[in-house]
């Protein structure tokens, strides 16, 4: 035997070294990414807990004087929940249908390309501009009052492109095999979309919608221009000024006394908790719906 017989070699020291080095870099990158996240959370929690109590969650700022302690954000919580719910009610159906059109029906036509183009442009619209648009169109031209609904419309302008894009991505991931399997059973196209394509993409679409909601729930600028301010509870989103949590934080933080600053931190904490709860709910829904669970 003259040829060198291949033998099983040990991992060389160099390779071990490289492996450890790259691993260290990966962990370092992770740590760096986590630092701002954790410090923001820490700051908000440690400062917000001071006023994060029952009174804060159940009372408004009505009849609370400039220097008084007490008061709460109930009116702002109600406002944010209603505005975000209305905004989702507008943008999720429209966004989902748009995505279905783009993926399932628009076969490279002009319409498809122009819709894609405008969705991309909408992604880049600064949030103030969305607020200004509703202010100019709805409130100044049509003469409608400031209201939670106006705020919801501004937010939905910001949500729409995110919903369309994420739903589109998810629908494109559904393998064509499944569509064909359904066609081959003599199932019509729209039923295939409703019963096979959308359920398959369901988890991803829910995640996308949650991200869109989380993004707009913290928007201040468009609310500033559309829902106005109020210190009292207004449960009707269609009539009169409402409050929103981001506005509340913005308002309280600008006041000079410590009691107001504490309320601002508590408001920020409340917003984070709400988003967290929403995300948790979405996780539960997708977990509960996932085929893997039934195995």
């Amino acid at each position, binding site marked *: 035997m003259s040829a060198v017989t291949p033998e099983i070699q040990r991992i060389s020291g160099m390779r071990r070294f490289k492996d450890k080095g790259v691993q260290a870099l990966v962990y370092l990158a992770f740590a760096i990414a986590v630092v701002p996240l954790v410090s923001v959370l820490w700051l908000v929690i440690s400062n917000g807990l001071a006023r994060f109590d029952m009174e804060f969650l159940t009372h408004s700022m009505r009849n609370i004087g400039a220097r008084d302690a007490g008061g709460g954000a109930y009116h702002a919580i109600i406002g944010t929940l209603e505005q975000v719910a209305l905004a989702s009610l507008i943008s999720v159906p429209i966004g989902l249908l748009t995505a279905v059109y783009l993926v399932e029906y628009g*076969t*490279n036509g002009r319409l498809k390309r122009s819709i894609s183009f405008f969705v991309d442009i909408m992604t880049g619209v600064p949030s103030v501009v969305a607020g200004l648009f509703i202010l100019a169109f709805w409130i100044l031209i049509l003469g409608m009052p400031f209201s939670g609904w106006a705020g919801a419309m501004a937010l939905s302008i910001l949500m729409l492109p995110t919903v369309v894009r994420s739903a589109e991505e998810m629908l494109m991931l559904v*393998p064509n*095999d*499944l*569509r*064909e*399997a*359904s*066609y*081959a*059973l*003599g*199932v*019509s*196209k729209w*039923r*295939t979309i409703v*019963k*096979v394509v959308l*359920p*398959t993409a*369901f988890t991803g679409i829910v995640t996308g919608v949650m991200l869109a909601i989380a993004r707009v729930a913290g928007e201040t600028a468009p609310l500033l221009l559309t829902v106005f301010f109020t210190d009292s509870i207004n449960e009707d989103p269609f009539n009169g000024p409402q409050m929103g949590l981001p506005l509340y934080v913005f308002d309280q933080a600008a006041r000079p006394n410590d009691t107001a600053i504490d309320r601002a931190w508590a408001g920020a904490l409340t917003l984070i908790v709400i988003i967290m709860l929403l995300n948790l709910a979405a996780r539960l829904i997708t977990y509960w719906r996932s*085929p*893997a669970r*039934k*195995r």
Partner: protein
Amino acid sequence: MAKQIEVTDVDAYYGSHKAIEGINMTIDARAVTAFIGPSGCGKSTFLRTLNRMHEVIPGARVEGKIRMEEQDLYGSDVDPVSVRRTIGMVFQRPNPFPTMSIYDNVAAGLRLNHRYSKSQLDTIVEDSLKGANLWNEVKDRLNKPGSGLSGGQQQRLCIARAIAVQPQVLLMDEPCSALDPISTLAIEDLISKLKQEFTIVIVTHNMQQAARVSDKTAFFNLAAQGQPGKLIEMDETTKIFTSPTQKATEDYITGRFG
């Protein structure tokens, strides 16, 4: 309820590319017809023209006539959805719906089209699974996802799903190519059993399989890469495998070909 299919001068295109040309044949009712031929000669394309699945590909179109018992499948007022309901299809790779249970997969074609009572569905699902020789293996886990089955079981599930809608014709595109020999045998047995009720067309690269299961065999070939595929010869399977009239067929069958 099996029906015969009559094909006259069919061409199929992908955009401007002509994939098959001038196909003429008669597919007998209650018999198994096998399509054989080298890769890329248009067997799958032709199979898909038979139940109007070809046209779901953007840019794809079909010319010529395909009739099923005097009914023109490509008539201008014919609903392609109803054509696919009458001519079912099983794909090369098993593709059970991942979000549905075994039961729901079999019931899918029924439920997605009409309303059935629970007991009607139960009967049809059981019959179809029995028809696909799968009932005994899955009867205790009908509510588990179909993706949890083995490849061979998944393929039989897809066959059960296809026969549940009571088609007249069943098209199968290399239904065994992703399966082990045992599952392949199970499916071949199934095909022989199904031909009493359905007209069956099967594409296969396995000569023995064609010889074992089919009554008639059609050999497709293409003159050169980029040329459209053509039907070279079609006859009784025994005739094709013992004394084909065309030289190309003989070369292909005996393995003297690319």
